[in-house]
């Protein structure tokens, strides 16, 4: 297996050599090799126990070990699944680009996709600090190359550089955290971090880790790369990035959380608060978007928020010694990783289908696709229902686990814990309600009604092989929804091995609830089938007609009379106005305009958090950094003085022994 793994990574360079039409085939084959080898390890790790594989590549701290415990295995399986769907989807999505793009760009793209897959697998299995950071860096670099696939557009390139910078900020934070631990314990690895946690206060180091991993995961206020990078990247890349790559941040947080020893209360409250804020602001910002992929990107933040709520609740459970709360909070978060990976990649793939068919993802000009793209719209609908946490799909199951944990704790909660519990429930409920609001908008505006702008070309369903990954994912979404007890038990087992908490009293109770949920889901599907059957039977016996929509007596309406994304979001906008910087560009009619020319109307909302946290610094830099341009005089004698000054300074510091 180790040979297959190495072989796959080594032969990836072959993508550059092969002729254009064989590149994809080789890429796919290598992906499958990666999946086979690591999938095998992961399954072994889940069934038998932690696997340790030596990679025979030495660093100074000995050969690199792949350590695959159940947590790693779980994430590995998710990575393999989504990357597989991603590469399958890429076959169709890249087709229009094949003749246009130069061969080397296609190779670079496929190569990076494979290496992103490999790097993520390595991230989950590295325990040594250096190796982990190396894998982490590989993951960031290759995803950067994937994001700038359409680098001929200036905005895409800019977004890519923004992304690269932010990833390195995160990288630096994680590295510093490792170094702090190593400085005190002498071990640059997760074991060193564990040792550090037993000896010192946990909160400062954990928060440093949380910030570093949080940038990757996209917790607010560290999220600002996300809504830029996802829309810029091609859809199969956005699907994989949003589905699994941001989960690597969550993986890191899980890994560190499992090592925590003290300060749990503080850490738990902070993580929970960040989770609730990310969830709420994420979905509110999502509702304000016009761009479908940007909307989905904000939803990633929202779902990361839900995961954050689960983790926060879990840490609090550990803090107060309530195992039930801890296990269910973490289990909900862990299962939501899988769930989100499934429905988010499904949504990005279907958004990609829309782009493929209409060349736009701006909801202002979409609409009426449902009759032309029946399968795509069904897939999107299922994704939308799942992400809103609606039964019988999978999103509900993970949210239900978190709810169950909190509700179980409430009766015995202290004053503060009951307030925290109510806040967490409120957060989840509001996120759920807003999600319905958002996805009725996303689906309604993109697929329903009639097209919201003049149609320029024929829109038709994408080729079947672009729908195949969607079918695979929908199957799994339904499977989790209808066999939830199996998955609930699985994640609880993983957590049991990670935290060494006895789950004897917890598993049967939650399995009972989840079995009931799944049975209800099955019953629901049956009842829906029966009702629809009766309806079909009734329709066959009566007269059924097609008429124009009832326009309240006015029959000359056209597509402009429909609701638009802006108007649909308006009632919420009035409520959350202080949170979003909303501007409306419109000149009203003046008295003199007897024959007014066509008017345009344009609204936009800014991300205030980004504005205040990131951009305000950037603006300051942009303002003051040019002042340093004085030094760039263009005279060679000036430039020779600089190294001299530097050398003198270094000399002085050495002589005076200051550093």
């Amino acid at each position, binding site marked *: 297996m180790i040979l297959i793994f190495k072989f796959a990574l080594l032969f990836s360079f072959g993508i550059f050599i092969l002729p254009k039409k064989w590149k994809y085939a080789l890429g796919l084959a290598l992906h499958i090799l990666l999946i086979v080898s690591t999938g095998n390890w992961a399954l072994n790790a889940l069934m038998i126990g932690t696997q340790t594989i030596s990679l025979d590549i030495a660093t100074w701290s000995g050969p690199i070990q792949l350590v695959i415990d159940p947590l790693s295995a779980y994430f590995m399986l998710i990575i393999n699944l989504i990357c597989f769907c991603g590469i399958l989807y890429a076959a169709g999505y890249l087709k229009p680009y094949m003749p246009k793009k130069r061969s080397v760009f296609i190779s670079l793209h496929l190569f990076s996709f494979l290496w992103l897959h490999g790097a993520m697998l390595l991230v989950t299995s590295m325990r040594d600090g250096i190796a982990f950071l190396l894998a982490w860096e590989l993951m960031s670099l290759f995803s950067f190359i994937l994001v700038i696939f359409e680098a001929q557009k200036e905005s895409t390139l800019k977004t890519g550089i923004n992304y690269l910078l932010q990833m390195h900020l995160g990288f630096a934070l994680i590295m510093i955290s490792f170094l702090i631990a190593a400085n005190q314990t002498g071990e640059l690895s997760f074991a060193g971090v564990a040792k550090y946690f037993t000896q010192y206060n946990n909160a400062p180091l954990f928060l440093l880790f949380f910030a570093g991993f949080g940038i990757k995961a996209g917790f607010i206020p560290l999220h600002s790369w996300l809504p830029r990078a996802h829309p810029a990247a091609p859809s199969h890349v956005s699907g994989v990035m949003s589905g699994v790559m941001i989960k690597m941040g969550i993986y890191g947080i899980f890994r560190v959380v499992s090592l925590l020893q003290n300060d749990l209360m503080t850490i738990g409250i902070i993580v929970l608060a960040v989770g609730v804020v990310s969830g709420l602001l994420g979905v509110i910002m999502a509702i304000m978007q016009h761009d479908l992929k940007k909307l989905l990107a904000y939803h990633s933040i929202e779902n990361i928020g839900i995961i954050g709520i689960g983790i926060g609740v879990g840490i609090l459970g550990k803090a107060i010694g309530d195992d039930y709360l801890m296990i269910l909070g973490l289990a909900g978060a862990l299962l939501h990783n899988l769930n989100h990976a499934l429905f988010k990649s499904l949504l990005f793939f279907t958004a990609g289908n829309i782009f493929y068919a209409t060349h736009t993802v701006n909801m202002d000009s979409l609409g009426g696709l449902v009759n032309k793209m029946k399968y795509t719209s069904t897939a999107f609908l299922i994704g939308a229902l799942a992400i809103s946490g609606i039964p019988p799909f999978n999103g509900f199951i993970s949210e239900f686990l978190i709810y169950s944990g909190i*509700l179980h704790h409430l009766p015995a*909660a202290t004053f503060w814990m009951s307030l925290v519990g109510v806040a967490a429930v409120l957060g989840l409920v509001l996120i759920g*309600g807003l999600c319905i609001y958002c996805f009725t*908008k996303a689906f309604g505006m993109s697929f329903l*009604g009639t097209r919201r702008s003049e149609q320029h070309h024929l829109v038709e369903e994408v080729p079947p092989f672009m729908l195949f990954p969607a079918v695979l994912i929908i199957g799994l979404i339904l499977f989790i929804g209808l066999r939830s007890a199996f998955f609930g038990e699985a994640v609880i087992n993983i957590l049991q091995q990670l935290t060494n908490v006895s789950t004897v009293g917890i598993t049967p109770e939650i399995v009972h609830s989840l079995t009931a949920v799944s049975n*209800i889901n099955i019953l629901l599907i049956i009842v829906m089938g029966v*009702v629809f059957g009766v309806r079909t039977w009734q329709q066959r016996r*009566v007269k059924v007609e097609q008429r124009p929509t009832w326009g309240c007596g006015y029959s000359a309406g056209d597509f402009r009379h429909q609701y638009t994304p802006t108007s649909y979001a308006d009632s919420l906008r009035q409520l959350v106005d202080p949170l979003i910087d909303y501007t409306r560009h419109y000149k009203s009619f003046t008295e003199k305009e007897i024959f007014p020319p066509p008017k345009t109307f344009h609204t936009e909302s800014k991300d205030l958090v980004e504005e205040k946290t990131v951009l305000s610094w950037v603006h300051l830099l942009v303002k003051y950094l040019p002042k340093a341009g004085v030094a760039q005089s263009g005279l060679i004698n000036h430039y020779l003085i600089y190294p001299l000054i530097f050398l003198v300074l270094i000399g002085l510091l050495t002589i005076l022994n200051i550093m």
Partner: protein
Amino acid sequence: MLSLVLILLACIYFPGVIVKVKAFFSGRKGPGILQPWSDIFRLLKKGSVYSTSSSFIFQIGASVYFSTVVIAALFVPFQETTALVSFNGDFVLFAYLLGLGRFLIILSALDVSSGFEGMGANREAFYSMLIEPAFFILLGALAMFTGYTSFHDIFASLHYHNYFSGIIAIIAGYVLANITLVETSRLPVDDPLTHLELTMVHEVMVLDHSGFDLGIIKTANNLKFVLFSSLSANCFIPQSLDLSLRIAIFLVLQVFFAGGIGWLESFRARNKMAMNAQYILSVSAIAMILIFVVIIIKNRI
């Protein structure tokens, strides 16, 4: 099982009583108690007209909505007799199931590409998003008070707890009654009888539904009404009484609920559209008060 029978029984006369009471206050004789149901049965037999811009979403929307409400009916208990479905955290599924129905009915409204129905869809999504927290805070407070997390356990033990049960039950019943009004789109949030499409919420969403679909939507609405008012009634009926007496009280209470709604709709003007958000949030605020009452009663401060 008993609860389901009672709900179906109450369902029969509930809409009729509302109509009758409203007719009484406006000085008319009004139709018979069963007239709303005979209207629905007529609809179920009628042909349908579909909008030319509608799609399969419109075709399945009403059926899904109806099915979710039917399934949700299995969750509602009657006092200590078990509901057909009961497990820990069942009310979470109850609320999210209704969410599924709402999702599809909103989409069916958007499917016909009418500005009016878009308006209704938008309002429905907005108001239901605002009312959801009230339901969860309320159930959270009841779970905190009784120590259980399923509908059945909560209502079975609500009245046996201690002297304070009465206070809790009354506030809870009041909040539930308010939730009922919002969830089922009645006054003061939405006026089902208004004839101006611009100001409707639920009714405008189903403007283009006809025949069988409209019939099952109306059935589902009635059922949903009784579901919520049954939850509310569970809070009000004292448990120490004999079961048959309690059944009688339940059925009479439902008449009172329906009558109350008829009375409310005859004398109260609807809220201004812009005020609805505040009104709905105030229900959540009252539910929040309940949380603090429970915290104080349980000596958690």
